[in-house]
């Protein structure tokens, strides 16, 4: 049986407001904006994907105009956090603290390229979340860096307590 026109319309409204809600979850922090990170909203792959276009501000020119390792690390850190907030069991408002982050730099990437960082949450419970991430060149698919991070959930969102 086909849903009524009215039901379809209200479903559409729910989906639309949900996606607006999700988008607000992923507002770029000031440093994400400074680096020029872009959330890939139409991404169909697993987890969450963020693009980092090559630009002077993310460059390491003494090594010949390549992405600076720190800019890749920062994008992996950011995407890993977003992928937890994107998890189906994540309750909005739960605070989150990064416990650790390890990044392996497999190869360098030219600034003429754009990187795609993808983060996938492998484990999630009320207290901990485990994430793995990759950074690859969009055009060629070459793997540039891999990362792994652990997050603690539900820590008090107050610097006085940390």
């Amino acid at each position, binding site marked *: 049986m086909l849903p009524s026109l009215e039901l379809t319309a209200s479903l559409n409204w729910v989906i639309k407001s949900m996606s607006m809600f999700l988008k607000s979850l992923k507002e770029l*922090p000031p*440093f994400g904006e400074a680096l020029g990170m872009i959330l890939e909203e139409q991404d169909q792959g697993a987890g969450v994907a963020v693009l980092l276009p090559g630009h002077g501000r993310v460059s390491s*020119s003494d090594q010949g105009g390549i992405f600076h390792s*720190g*800019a890749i*690390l*920062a994008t992996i850190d950011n995407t890993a956090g977003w992928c937890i907030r994107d998890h189906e069991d994540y309750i909005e408002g739960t605070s989150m603290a990064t416990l650790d982050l390890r990044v392996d730099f497999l190869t360098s990437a030219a600034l003429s390229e754009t990187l795609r960082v993808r983060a996938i949450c492998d484990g999630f419970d009320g207290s901990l979340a485990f994430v793995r991430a990759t950074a690859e060149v969009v055009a060629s698919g070459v793997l540039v860096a891999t990362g792994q991070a652990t997050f603690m959930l539900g820590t008090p969102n107050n610097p006085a307590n940390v």
Partner: protein
Amino acid sequence: MAQSLQNKLDHVHRLIKANPYLELLGAEAEVIEEEVIVSVFGAPHLVGNINLPALHGGVIGSLLGFAATAQVVYTNNLHASPRLVNIDIDYLRTGKPIKTFAAAKVVRQGRRVANMRAELWQAERTRTIAVARVQFLLDQ
């Protein structure tokens, strides 16, 4: 002697100028008793969480990596950054958007690889905000 020290520090300063990303961070470097201390002023664009507010984890990680790079460059009098193999950061406390320091020491340096330990602090050096294990490949 003093001149060679200045010369070694010049390599570190050149490193910052040659890396626009480090300039975006506002990174600075000084040497105190053979230890390279790098720092950033906690500028608003370095924030990762506007509610706390807290420095972005990527800023903390980048500064730890830079501290290790600067120490390797200084110790070995290198003219370019060595290749960063990997970095493993432990975040111990929230970093506030204020003046932040980092320094690294060599755990072991062989002919090809340097293994470093970096730490990051703010107002008090003993109140460590984050630590990292950093490895470089030297013979590139």
